[in-house]
């Protein structure tokens, strides 16, 4: 589904991604872990199409199409979803109104009729139950005054409504307490299918107890330096990142 080949990206002249290679197939869950500054969020942003980042080399093919040539809204309409690490607030615009606009634009792109108010509201009810989110929260301005947990639940709610093919969760677990973590993970798991794929970016192994990955990749200094299964995550939890850093750095000096 997703094929990243030799991806290099910089911001303000600093190269952050230095040759990422990654293959993700439908039905898979890939975890991207790594120490601070390794480029995890940069990878998520570049895939979503954030313009501050300049892609200097490499290609990304999503379902047979050149992802890097598409505007961010088109990538979204093609089925790419990014659950933001710090979801932004939009005063005066309710979550409901926001989602309805988004959903109908996506549907138009795919040649579908827009959803009328009744169908939209019943779709909302269905998905609200999935993420245990309250109607009251959705009538308020998007993310305004929401707690960390509420913002992250809102991200997953939007994911449920937009039904993406590829979901990228950017440190979705940051700022969540145990209960919120459980709710958010439940939501993500219920949305998984053999036709969708998920990339989970995280520091900590804890989230991966709930959202079990098929593959774990360690990102360090802009490259994937180690890949493994969920056992790798447990090893990182026990030993930290130092042993990998030493391995990589000493190999570089040899």
């Amino acid at each position, binding site marked *: 589904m997703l094929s990243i080949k030799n991806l290099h990206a910089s911001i303000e002249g600093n190269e952050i991604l230095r040759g990422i290679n990654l293959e993700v197939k439908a039905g898979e869950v890939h975890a991207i872990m790594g120490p601070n500054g390794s480029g995890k969020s940069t990878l998520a942003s570049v895939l*979503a*199409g*954030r*313009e501050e980042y300049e892609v200097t080399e490499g290609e990304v093919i999503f379902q047979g199409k050149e992802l890097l040539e598409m*505007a*961010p*809204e088109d*990538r*979204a*309409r093609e089925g790419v*979803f*990014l659950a*933001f690490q710090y*979801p*932004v*607030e*939009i*005063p*005066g*615009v309710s979550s409901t*109104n*926001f*989602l309805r*606009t*988004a*959903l109908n*634009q*996506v549907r138009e*792109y795919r040649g579908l009729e827009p959803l009328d108010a009744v169908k939209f509201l019943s779709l909302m009810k269905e998905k609200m139950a999935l993420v245990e989110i309250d109607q009251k929260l959705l009538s308020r*301005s998007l993310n305004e005054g929401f707690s960390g947990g509420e913002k992250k639940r809102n991200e997953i709610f*939007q994911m449920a409504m*937009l039904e993406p093919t590829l979901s990228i969760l950017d440190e979705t677990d940051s700022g969540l307490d145990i209960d919120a973590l459980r709710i958010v993970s439940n939501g993500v798991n219920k949305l998984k299918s053999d036709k969708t794929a998920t990339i989970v970016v995280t520091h900590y192994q804890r989230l991966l107890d709930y959202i079990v990955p098929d593959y774990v990749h360690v990102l360090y200094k802009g490259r994937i330096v180690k890949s493994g299964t969920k056992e790798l995550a447990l090893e990182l939890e026990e030993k930290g990142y130092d042993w990998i850093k030493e391995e990589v750095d000493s190999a570089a000096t040899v």
Partner: protein
Amino acid sequence: MSKDNQILEELTSKEYEHGWSVNYETDEAPAGLNEDIIKWISSKKEEPEWLLEWRLKAFRTWQQMIEPEWANVHYPKIDLQALKYYSAPKQAKKPKNLNEVDPELIAIYERLGISLNEQKRLQGIAVDAVLDSVSVATTFKDTLGKLGIVFCSFSEAVKEHPELIKKYLGSVVPMTDNYYAALNSAVFSDGSFCYIPKGVRCPMELSTYFRINAANTGQFERTLIVADDSSYVSYLEGCTAPQRDENQLHAAVVEIYAGAHAEVKYSTVQNWFPGDKEGKGGIYNFVTKRGICAGDHSKISWTQVETGSAVTWKYPSCILKGDYSIGEFYSVAVTNNYQQADTGTKMIHIGKNTKSRIVSKGISAGKSQNSYRGQVQVMKRADNARNFSQCDSLLMGDRCGAHTFPYIDINNPSAKVEHEATTSKIGEDQIFYCNQRGIATEDAVALIVNGYAKEVLNQLPMEFAVEAQKLLALTLEGSVG
């Protein structure tokens, strides 16, 4: 960032869609401004002697005044002698009802989406259609007449209800008030008159739709609304004008009188031609609007969505004379390209326990300048006055300007006055968030701007609110940067 500029350049801003003009036979005054022209206008309108005298008095007052230059706007001086002060479509005879109005004129309004055909109307809105200097048609006059409501053109009111005109004309905006009010009082063309009798709640929205068509004319509408004790009326004003290279002057006066327990809601969606992208042409919109809450427990609300005109200079105000009276001002003023706006309100607290509320949302884009100028004045004997003011500015891009000039003048120690102001930009993060959910940038801007202006848009009657939302989006097309 260079990619942003590329996208900006590729986006074309929608053409001002009301920029067309129609050629029809007109009755016009020769260019120039002097006592003879005023006499000519007055006789054309078949006005009584007392009104001509009033006009001449205003003209002589105006001649003693100096053109004001204190506003935060810059424009080339208008040659007032080069303008024509009267232009009306030639009609064979004065039409007595809609069926007698020249169909070509009705067609102009149809094209603007305003139906003057009473059968075709969907909503309960009575329309007074003013084209250039005259009112061409007023709908539902008979229906309203049965309730004792007078809704007709100002010219007609002078003939049919002279006692009301004599009593209230100039009572809220005296001819000495300011340069443009004096000028208007001398040469005013037409506008609407509305009288709601005691205890009557007007069953439909009343509206006037101003359309300028002729070139090189000045437009000086005069509107007077009188709401007697315990009455209610909601009034809408809409305006558009053709696209021309020269600037045109629009100096209107609106007076509102509210009796005890009366309420008047006055809403404006202004879409005068704003000038082209280079700042050429466009309407100068210099307007004096004022309401007096004369009776106890009276209320006047001004709601305006200003998106057009090259230069906007207006301060719809409320004089809170009656005890427990309430004045409100809700405004969204948008400027793009080279437009300039210096607008706001004045709330004068005179009676006891009076309240005022000001919500001003300025949106600047392009190379425009948008200023809020407001005055909250609490007089010495105005016990327990309350005011809440919120002035927000939204800047889109880095070449526009937003300015705030609040004046707060309190002379009574029991007053409670709150003032809040914010300045913000549309964040790239917000736009990207919308993009990532599949919303294109133009639609994201419209969504965010509408959210920003929501508190004001919610004050508009529904039909206007929908139009206003569309207008906001259109005015801001291609402005993200």
